[in-house]
């Protein structure tokens, strides 16, 4: 009894705290909050999963982000108001416990002057030695909160506050493929060579994105990642 009341209260809280708004006429965004947090992301991942595993008529895809889910749909078969109620139905039966990680993936990280051009910068930001920065960085397991920016680019969190160096003021025009970077409390791996402004502290030889493969991206939302020094 007590448990179900607590559940109702929690559910009511969800509805007060979250909002749904149209992202144009063929997508809707459900926002749980506006910060990088394991809680908001867990809810986003569970809702996206609930929708993807049991899509409503006209749904194209459900895309989880840090603290939101965006549902894309075909306006020929459904409309915003219907989508809203479909989402509400899924929310009311959403599991409230933290979803287990899909997988824990080990990613080898190469540290050298060439592969880690911003390690010193992160060190001076943190007032720590390079070795201390690395020790802090490597001691954590990171969760893939979402993908974006480039095919297979995983946004992972949360980087320890002490080494959460902000983005470069002037982004680089070319960041090599496989580069591992820090931007505030996020860490990510560049799957392709691209412009970018994250602090590059290492590189991996692991293929993050392979268009020829049936599973073109190594990481998926909800995966957990451990970096292992080579």
């Amino acid at each position, binding site marked *: 009894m007590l448990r179900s009341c607590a559940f109702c209260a929690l559910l009511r809280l969800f509805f007060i705290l979250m909002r749904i708004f149209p992202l*144009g*006429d063929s997508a809707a965004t459900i926002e749980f909050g*506006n910060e990088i947090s394991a809680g908001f992301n867990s809810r986003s991942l569970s809702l996206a999963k609930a929708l993807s595993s049991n899509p409503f008529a006209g749904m194209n895809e459900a895309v989880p982000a840090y603290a*939101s889910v965006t549902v894309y749909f075909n306006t020929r078969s459904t409309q915003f108001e219907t989508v809203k109620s479909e989402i509400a139905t899924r929310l009311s039966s959403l599991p409230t416990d933290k979803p287990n990680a899909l997988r824990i993936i080990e990613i080898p990280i190469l540290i050298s002057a060439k592969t880690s051009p911003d390690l010193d910068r992160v060190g001076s930001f943190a007032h720590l030695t390079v070795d201390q920065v690395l020790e802090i960085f490597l001691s954590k397991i990171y969760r893939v909160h979402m993908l974006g*920016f480039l095919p*297979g680019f995983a*946004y992972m969190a949360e980087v320890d506050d002490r080494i959460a160096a902000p983005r470069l003021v002037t982004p680089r025009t070319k960041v090599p493929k496989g580069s591992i970077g820090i931007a505030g409390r996020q860490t990510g791996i560049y799957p392709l060579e691209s412009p970018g402004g994250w602090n590059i502290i290492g590189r991996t030889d692991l293929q993050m994105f392979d*268009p020829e493969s049936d599973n*073109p991206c190594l990481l998926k939302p909800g995966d957990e990642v451990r970096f292992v020094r080579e």
Partner: protein
Amino acid sequence: MTLLIRKPGILTTVQDLGRTGYRLLGINPNGVMDRAAARLINILLGNDENDAVLEMHFPAAEMEFDTECSFAIGGAEFSAMLNDEPVRNWSTLNAFPSDILRFGKPELGTRAYLAVAGGFVVDEWLGSRSTNLVAAVGGFEGRKLKAGDRLELRSPRPVKPHTIAPSLIPKYSRFPTVRVIASGEFDLLTSIRERSFLNDGFTVTKDSNRMGFRLSGPPLHLLHSKEMVSAAVTFGTIQLIPDGQLIVLMADHQTVGGYPRIANVISADLPLLAQLGPGDGVSFHLVSVADAEQASAIFENDLCWLRTGIRLLG
């Protein structure tokens, strides 16, 4: 049976209506910028509306046919010429071996589309033939076309002559008013800025491409600045960037963004926006979701009639 690219033009790519289902992996839909144009000319030729087409910018490509086939051009008016004879957009056209198609000058619009009856044989990636230039996959070897490329025609055939009724053709303009739906952070615009967004025109700057259009206009500000965590965005999302200017995301947009989302251009008006180039202008008119849905339904209904008509007339 191929279409030979004699001159590639500045940016000619193979596109269809885009790739869905992979945004959660950071893989964006790509696809044609002007969906109305691509769908109309494909339907006109009796193709599947999702068949691959060539999207051209100006200077456009110069091409040579090696077989008899029908084709159609839609979207921008680039003064198309078949063997130096002017030919019309939105009509079925017939080519014979050694015929040369080229484009004279840009009269209206920024992107012209070419479809051939029977479609092209091109690379499919994750269910779509659209070119993803960043990942270098899909379409024709994942890249823009270059001189000497030969696009294989799937089943070239002549079709009966048809022309699309003017009422179905998008009302392109260099200064369109496009309808928008308020989005996540619209309410954070101060009332004076909200008026500004809806009453002042914006200019498309030269920093505009298939990924997005950067607009220039009166700087807009929010009631209070909002730090945002990244969330998914879409084709037509209007973002407010820190300098007070707007960016409209287009077909090759990234899947997520971290700027305030002021509004989204409605699907029915995206083709008008897609035809703009640097120096052109755009104004926004706020409508409800229901208005947007109705506008889409009207166009879908028109397409349905066109499809039926073409099928009946053969």
